[in-house]
């Protein structure tokens, strides 16, 4: 029954900065990332600075080419497509970015911004395009009075709705959302998240949803991937992963979130130290320098992804057959 719309296979990405030849500095943003999204579902990616989650978005959208690996969208390998083909594929995948004032051309009206995708892909005629624009506005709960306005006169929430309208106007199958609510107030965020869910049902969309906010990810996702320094450290159904995390980093992240309940304050700091610079990646397991349950071997052996449940994987040596007997209590062994 598995019907993946998008598959990211062993994707790695290295960026080069400045200098020439041996003076050039290399940054490994992604290392052997494997992800999959089933049609109609939402994959949430959660991670902190340097996790690589935004880079994954850009690679999926074809804005950056991976250094290695493949991106299979609807059965086609995007990394092999010529530019003209890619443009056609883009109709099927659209994006909503974090709303800063710069998500829209300040000189264009809402109408112009919404017409642009239709014009680029030569959809319909002038008349029918306006109808599509109105429909898109309707889907996001805005009325036609917004058409003549300029984006910077809108509130953050309204702007984000227009961004969503722009993303769905071509009726794509995949929508990539990169921190779409991070700049919004709590009450506005709630509305936008509900809008995302509603539109997903109405238009049968598949989402790749990125956020650093675990509560948001929990609310919108079916499956969650936790990323750290360019690796997927845990992936699985969101309820399972968040109620019984199988990787120390996921656990620490969940612990670190301040809860809206003063009776449940943190007793210990769940995680020490700073996020290491990606220029100087720790040896062995990337997380070992900050891991509260690290073993000696973690500093020289890099864990692969171990199956830890149904459709649930975690990259931690504690799940290895060699060590699982001495594992901390929260590690659920498959054997």
């Amino acid at each position, binding site marked *: 029954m598995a019907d993946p719309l998008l598959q990211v296979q062993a994707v790695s990405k290295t960026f080069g900065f400045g200098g020439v030849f041996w003076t050039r500095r290399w940054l490994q943003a992604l290392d052997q990332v494997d992800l999959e999204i089933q049609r109609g579902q939402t994959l949430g990616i959660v991670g902190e600075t340097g996790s690589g989650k935004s880079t994954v978005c850009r690679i999926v959208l074809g804005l950056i080419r991976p250094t290695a690996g493949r991106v299979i969208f609807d059965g086609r390998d995007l990394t092999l497509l010529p530019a003209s083909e890619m443009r056609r594929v*883009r109709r099927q995948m659209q*994006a909503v*970015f974090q709303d800063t004032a710069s998500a829209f*051309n300040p000189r264009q009206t809402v109408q112009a911004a919404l017409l*642009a*995708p239709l014009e*680029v*892909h030569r959809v319909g005629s002038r008349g029918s395009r306006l109808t599509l624009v109105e429909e898109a506005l309707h889907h996001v709960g805005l009325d036609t009075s917004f058409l003549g306005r300029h984006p910077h006169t809108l509130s953050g929430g309204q702007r984000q709705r227009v*961004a969503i309208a722009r993303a769905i106007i071509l009726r794509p199958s995949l929508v990539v959302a990169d921190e779409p609510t991070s700049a919004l107030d709590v009450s506005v965020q709630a509305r936008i998240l509900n809008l995302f869910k509603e539109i997903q049902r109405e238009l049968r969309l598949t989402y790749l949803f990125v956020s650093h906010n675990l509560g948001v990810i929990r609310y919108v996702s079916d499956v969650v991937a936790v990323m750290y320094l360019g690796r997927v450290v845990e992936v699985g159904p969101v309820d399972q992963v968040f109620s019984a995390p199988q990787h120390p980093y996921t656990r620490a992240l969940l612990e670190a979130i301040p809860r809206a309940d003063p009776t449940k304050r943190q007793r210990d700091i769940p995680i020490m130290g700073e996020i290491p610079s990606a220029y100087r990646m720790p040896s062995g397991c990337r997380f070992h320098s900050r891991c509260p349950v690290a073993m000696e071997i973690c500093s020289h052996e890099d864990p692969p992804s171990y199956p830890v449940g149904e459709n649930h994987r975690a990259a931690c040596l504690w799940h290895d057959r060699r060590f699982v007997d001495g594992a901390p209590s929260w590690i659920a062994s498959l054997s």
Partner: protein
Amino acid sequence: MQLVQHERHRMGLWAISWRRSRLLFIGGFLVGLVVPSAVFADVISPYSPYDIDVANKLQPPGRTHWLGTDEFGRDVLSRIIHAARISVKVGAVAVSVGLIGGGMIGITAGYFGGPIDMVLMRFMELLFSFPAILLAIVLMAVLGTSILNAMTAIGIIFIPGFSRLARAATQEVLRQQYIEAAHTIGMTDLRLLTREILPNVITPLFVEAMAAFAYAVLLESSLSFLGLGAQPPEPSWGNMLNTGRGFMDQAPWLGIVPGMAMLIGVLGFNLLGDGLRDFFDPRLREAV
């Protein structure tokens, strides 16, 4: 504080109070003296600038000739007004050449980056490193002395400055998220350049164009002062200043008047340019 910020933005032009936009008003006023004179020169000149009337030569300013007459009996006022036309024409053409040429080079360099950027910018730097007057003289020597060539020469001088500005503005625009959004939609390079980048790069270029206009007027005057621009009997502030030099003890007004006219023109455009720059920048970014 989003709401209050929004209100301030909507206030626009009419909210400019005198105190905050002195430059804009003064500059605008002075330019308002020069440009309409240039445009309506024929209508407002009391006399023709070419009419020789030797009998009345070297008259001091008086009732019949408000600013006096020159060594050929020509009315100085009329000559000043027609000279304004030359200056404004040269300024307009030169700035256009610089703006369009420099703009295209700058946007191309900024957009494509890499080796294209490097080559274009090195060439611009080469051009930029020549002192303006020297470059103008050299170009005129090559092209020949005439008003048209003066326009071209000055235009070429402006290209590097505009290109640098256009390049920086383009790079700034490229950092904005709507460019990424445009790529995601699948927009072609051409459409991106014309619809998304160009309109947002124009503003700083336009502001600079005002200051460049002032400089163009100055350069033209310098060139005609040196005998390389407008040729007699065409009046130009520069060549009037040149001849006026020789009459400083007999008829000082012949030197002072074109000098004052240049002052008004150059100052006017400079202030207007500064005023526009102030108008566009802090107002839009003023946090509340």
